[in-house]
Structures are given as structure tokens and as C-alpha cells.
């Protein structure tokens, strides 16, 4: 038995529906489940709520779903890299719920962990706390934030095995392990499929219990948003 599936397109189409809440991993364009985002676009599902730290850039990442007018609402911490998004937002076609980055990560973790809500100091006294329940603990004020459960979670990992165990590479990990936990159905796109040569159980980051399906990513050159380098020291190749 393996959780590997052959077609990302068929898989996403089978699990998404109009009005669904979809959580998507990634920070900027790093650690994005690109094939699964393409499959989500190809599904044509409408009125989606997307929960993701960022919303891609024009023509890339989750920006594709904006172009395709599939999104009604986004829950994000930063959406500044996407011009079309800005237009849709300003025109009122798109609802945005801003969540501080750490609050967003914790809300996904909470949703996946059966935690209905948690009290954080983040956002107290700011627009983020407006209309939310406040409570004082040990003399400090906290705001209640709710867990998020998604109908479908799309995850990018570096390696995955037949049981759905996942490991990530460098900062491409970011939101992915949290997105993996909060989906009613979670699909992971992996660069390397280990099959029954399982990942060492001591280094598994996302245990397979959180992952229902695995697809192998199409090989591609990964996008870099800000290519910053330094000159090589003299005499080095």
C-alpha cells in the first residue's frame, strides 16, 4: 500500500469543491506546491477561501488563482507582491483577512491539533484584535485567536515516502508542516519519492498520519524572488 498518486490534477479535482477552504504552504515563492496549485487552477473550483502566508506574485504561485477569479477570500499575513491581487482587493472583489504571521502559523497548528482557540499578545491594541475576545492573564492583555481547519491542504515537501512521511529542505519548510496538519484532506507534493525505502523515523518532520496523498513534483527550476549574492573572494573559483 502506498499513498503515492499519479495525477495531481485528478487528485485535486476529486477533493476540492466550490466554496472550499484550501490551506497552502509556502513563504513567498519558496516551498510552494506548484503542481498542486496548477491542479487547483485547472479544477476550476470557485469561491475558494485560500489560507496561505502570501498570495504569490503575478502569474506565479497562488497568483494564478487570482487571475482565474477562483478566490473569494484570503487569509494571509502579507500580500504585497501581487499587482492583480491589489486591484481585486481594492475593487472589493476579494476579501482579505490579515493575520499576523505567527498567529497564522499557530492558528493552522491549532486547527490541526484540535485546539479551538488560543490567547496571544500578538495584535493586542491593533486593528487585528478589533472585535475579538480579550482576556487578562497575569496582568497582561491577550487576544483570542481561533484554530483553522481547511477542507483541503496543499503541501510542498522535499522527500516523502509510501506512508506519507515527509521531510523538508532548508527554509522551504516554512508553513508546510502546519498546513499538513490542518487539512481534512492533505496532499503533499514531493521532489523525491522514497517509496518503501522509508525516511529514517527519527528525522521525519511530518508523520504520515497527517498526509492522505502524495504526488511527485514535476522537475522544474525553482523561483527566486530576490536573488542576492556577494562577490566571490579573489582566487576562488
Amino acid at each position: 500500500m502506498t499513498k503515492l498518486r499519479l495525477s495531481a490534477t485528478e487528485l485535486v479535482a476529486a477533493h476540492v469543491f466550490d466554496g472550499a477552504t484550501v490551506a497552502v504552504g509556502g513563504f513567498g515563492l519558496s516551498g510552494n506546491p506548484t503542481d498542486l496549485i496548477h491542479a487547483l487552477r485547472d479544477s476550476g473550483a470557485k469561491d475558494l477561501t485560500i489560507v496561505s502566508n502570501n498570495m504569490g506574485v503575478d502569474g506565479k504561485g497562488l497568483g494564478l488563482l487570482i487571475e482565474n477569479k477562483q478566490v473569494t477570500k484570503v487569509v494571509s499575513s502579507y500580500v504585497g507582491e501581487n499587482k492583480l491581487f491589489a486591484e481585486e482587493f481594492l475593487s472589493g472583489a476579494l476579501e482579505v483577512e490579515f493575520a499576523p504571521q505567527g498567529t497564522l502559523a499557530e492558528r493552522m497548528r491549532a486547527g490541526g491539533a484540535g485546539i479551538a482557540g488560543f490567547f496571544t499578545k500578538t495584535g493586542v491594541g491593533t486593528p487585528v484584535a478589533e472585535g475579538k475576545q480579550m482576556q487578562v492573564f497575569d496582568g497582561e492583555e491577550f487576544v483570542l485567536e481561533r484554530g483553522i481547519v481547511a477542507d483541503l491542504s496543499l503541501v510542498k515537501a522535499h522527500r516523502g515516502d509510501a506512508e506519507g512521511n515527509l521531510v523538508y529542505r532548508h527554509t522551504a519548510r516554512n508553513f508546510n508542516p502546519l498546513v499538513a496538519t490542518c487539512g481534512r484532506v492533505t496532499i503533499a507534493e514531493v521532489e523525491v519519492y522514497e517509496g518503501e525505502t522509508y525516511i529514517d523515523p527519527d528525522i521525519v518532520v511530518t508523520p504520515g498520519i497527517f498526509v492522505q496523498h502524495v504526488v511527485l513534483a514535476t522537475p522544474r527550476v525553482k523561483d527566486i524572488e530576490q536573488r542576492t549574492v556577494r562577490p566571490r573572494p579573489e582566487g576562488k573559483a
Partner: protein
Amino acid sequence: MAWTREDMATLAGRDLQDGQYVNLGIGIPTLVANHLPEGVRVTLQSENGLLGIGPFPFEGEEDADLINAGKQTVTAQPGSSFFDSATSFAMIRGGHVQTAILGALQVSGHGDLANWQIPGKLVKGMGGAMDLVAGTPHVIVLTEHVSKDGTPKIVTHCDLPLTGQRCVDKIITDLAVFDVTEDGLVLRAHCADTNIDDLRAVTGAPFAVDLDPEFVGP
């Protein structure tokens, strides 16, 4: 002459202690990494999931899977670690990252900070700034003393939407250094070619004066 961005970074660097964990915001704060006092080594945290940010990679060695919170390609120091965003903000929210250095649009005399929403412009989002100022024990703001049109950035009451309430501990501008105390601002130092009267004219909040006798310019 006012202090340069490098001067401001040098002054902020003096606030850091050897062995500390520090988060540097985008812009002038980033420069602090290159202006640490002799013998002070800090570990830089990047809220997207890296402890131990190294310098930019050599050309050709960029890795799309290794970026900082500004989405720039970076490297990782020996002894670094990668982790997910919830763990990253557990570090931040839990007070394990000891100092955060950020920019400001406005900062009040009681340490309220506004740095995520510009009036009349599109709201892009707060990213990790609200978590950083709420969770980090020591928050330093590095900012020009006045905005481009000459308006004071240090104010009695921020009229821009807040990033955090009473969260700033120290303000370093191109003209002066203030501590933020329970009773408001205390001027601790200023650059050579200004004086207290001039500072009052460009500072939108009242401040007490208790110049640090041991202050050495950058």
C-alpha cells in the same frame, strides 16, 4: 551632520550582547549585522524558519530553498537550524529571541509602534512584525527622525494603525537616541550638530533629558 544609516546601525549594535538571539527587520536594521562591536557575536533569526542567518551566497550558489524573511537568498551559518513557522514564532512569541530591531512609520512617546499601514496606500499586511513587537523582550526602532516631508515620526499618539502597543524600548534616529520609559521618552544622546531645542522642534512627543555621560558617537 546627522548620523548615517551605518552610524545608526553601529549604535543599535552596541545594545546587543554577545551570545544573543536577534531578529533584524528589513532596511536599516539589516545593516546592524555588519556593525557589531568587537567580540560580540549574535545569532540572527529569520522568522520564515532559520536560526543562524549567514551572508549572501556567492554568485551561482543561490538556493531557492534558502531565503530570509525579505525573500532574499542567504546562507546558513555553521550550527544553524531550520524549523517550521509555528516553531519560529514560538521562539518569537515566547520571548526566546531577545532583541528585535525594526523600522517605523510612527512611534509614540509611550512606545506604540506603527509600521505596517501607510495612509492612502494599499494595505500589504503586517507579516511577522506584530508577533515580533509583542513577543520580543527588547525592541529597538531604527528610523529617520522625520519623514521625507519633514513630519516628525516620533509622536505623542500614533494616528496610523498600530503594529503594537507600548512595545518599543529604544528609539535610534539619525539625530538622537531615546529610551522609552514608563513616563515617556528620555533623551540619552544626540548627534554632534543638533541640540535639545532643535530636537524638540522635530520631535512630536515631549521628552526628558538624561544624557548618557559615557556615550561615544558612532
